[in-house]
């Protein structure tokens, strides 16, 4: 989780990723931020987030992103 938070800070250092639960729904992250985050996660965690997983529910919070990563790693 710390690894993820660090990676997120790299993309946007002005967002409270630790506590925010509505990154997408409240428009905090722009669509391009998400793509940057995906690219970083793919590299850092050695997974491949498919385009079909790019939905708000998966990116609304760091916790949700971590869940997606874990799921992809287990698959």
């Amino acid at each position: 989780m710390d690894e993820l938070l660090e990676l997120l800070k790299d993309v946007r250092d002005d967002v409270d990723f630790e506590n925010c639960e509505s990154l997408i729904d409240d428009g905090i992250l722009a669509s391009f931020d998400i793509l940057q985050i995906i690219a970083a996660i793919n590299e850092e965690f050695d997974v491949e987030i498919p385009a079909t997983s790019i939905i708000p529910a998966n990116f609304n919070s760091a916790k949700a992103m971590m869940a997606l990563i874990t799921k992809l790693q287990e698959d």
Partner: protein
Amino acid sequence: MAFYSVAFFGFVLLFIILHDLVGEISPKNQWIVRLLAGLSFFVFLSGVRIVFVLVSALSVWDGARIIHKYDLKNKEMRKREGLSKDEKKAIKEKGQRAKRTYLLSIAGFNLLLLILVKYYLPVANHPIALPIGISFYTLMAVSYIVDVYGSKYEPEGNFVKVLLYLCWFPQLIQGPINRFDTVKDDLFSHHRLHAPDMRYAFYLFLFGAVKKYAIADLLAPIVNAALNNDSAAYPGSFALFGALMFAVQQYADFSGGIDMSIAVSLLFGVKMNENFRQPYFSTSLAQFWRRWHMTLGSWMRDYVFYPFVTLKPIADLNKAVSKRFGNHAGRSLIGGISNILVFALVGLWHGPEKHFLFWGLYNGIIIAASDALSPAFSKINTLLHIDPDGKGMYVFRIVRTFLIITFAGFFDVIGPVSVGIKCFINTAFHFMPSVGAGMIAQLFADGVTSVPAVVTAAVATVILIINSVSKERGRSPREYVCAQKFYVRWIICFSLIMILLYSFTVSSGIRGFMYAAF
């Protein structure tokens, strides 16, 4: 077979009756009637070239199943006992690679088929008539196999069901580019004709027909007279007039046709994907593309833009540029490159002619530039004390976006790119309004158009604008009409029918749909 033709009317009527009969006798098999309708429609229009859709359907049906099986097998292999973490990882990577190769070859095969008949053969001087709907169903086929690859849903086991997804007839003429997961339930289940659905379909079809025949077809001769290979010699005012008429014609033609397609599909219980959301109320060109031909835009986003931006080399480039020149530079560069790529493809999707590519690039470059310049724009706003969210700015943005789209018409309609550019220059430097007005008057004198035709188109356009404004404000004009007393409903309905019938009497000819050519 056009929507207004006796043949189409007979075709739909026949299959609606058959559809309902089979639905009564054997609800489970009702979808087979839909399949028969799709196949007969295809053969009716494209004869033996039905082979193309059969091959596409077969390739993605089988490909998706193989990819899915691969996935399951790979998972099983990793579950074996005694494997170290690294061994598991190696198995997974091997599986991923094989899966990706398979995906790329199947998707590539389908795209190559499209490229062959749509681009290669015409350019090599061996044109064949395009199989109906190939530009639309090929993208649908690709989306299906990519979605299965990304585990969005499980593959369909039954080949003919995938075939029905690709050759469902209302979508073959000009889209929408449906997605498997959004239409499959409707496509394969049993439907009874319900009065409210029928009523909705009827209104939608009628309104779509008014757009198509009372606006688009009546404006077409004017557009053709103003925007053509000779336009370089016309005053800017006349070319701009043509482009404005084209902006109206294009929307009326395409959205009217889609309304009719969606309505016909509804008669069989199949809700297709929406393709328009009042696009001319967009406040930026990027937003316009999220509201115009939405199914093409979202296809490009999901299957070109996202995968491209998250490619490793692109992500690395982004990182390097962001580190050196800041985040904004990184995203402007990568976003810009991706947008230009996507819109070049959107342009080419319309056809092999150079002006389509140019038109796509025009869109892509403007979107990329407005992204890159956004900090400068907000600085200007602050300097001039402009409230970016104010009402004035909102209207200004809508008008600006509309003009950008209107100018794009020069490249969309006119074949030679150089003539399109000349129209641009003339609009800026050789506007000559009085000469333009004279040429417009001449259109009437020459019989290119007539006062009744223009008045009919104007009345229908006003109705269209009222409808769009009320939708834009979050109201539902359809529900409003349906909630009225029956005689009010009938007055509205008959007025639309009268406008439609009248438009046929003043029309210089019924035209096919513009987007059916793509």
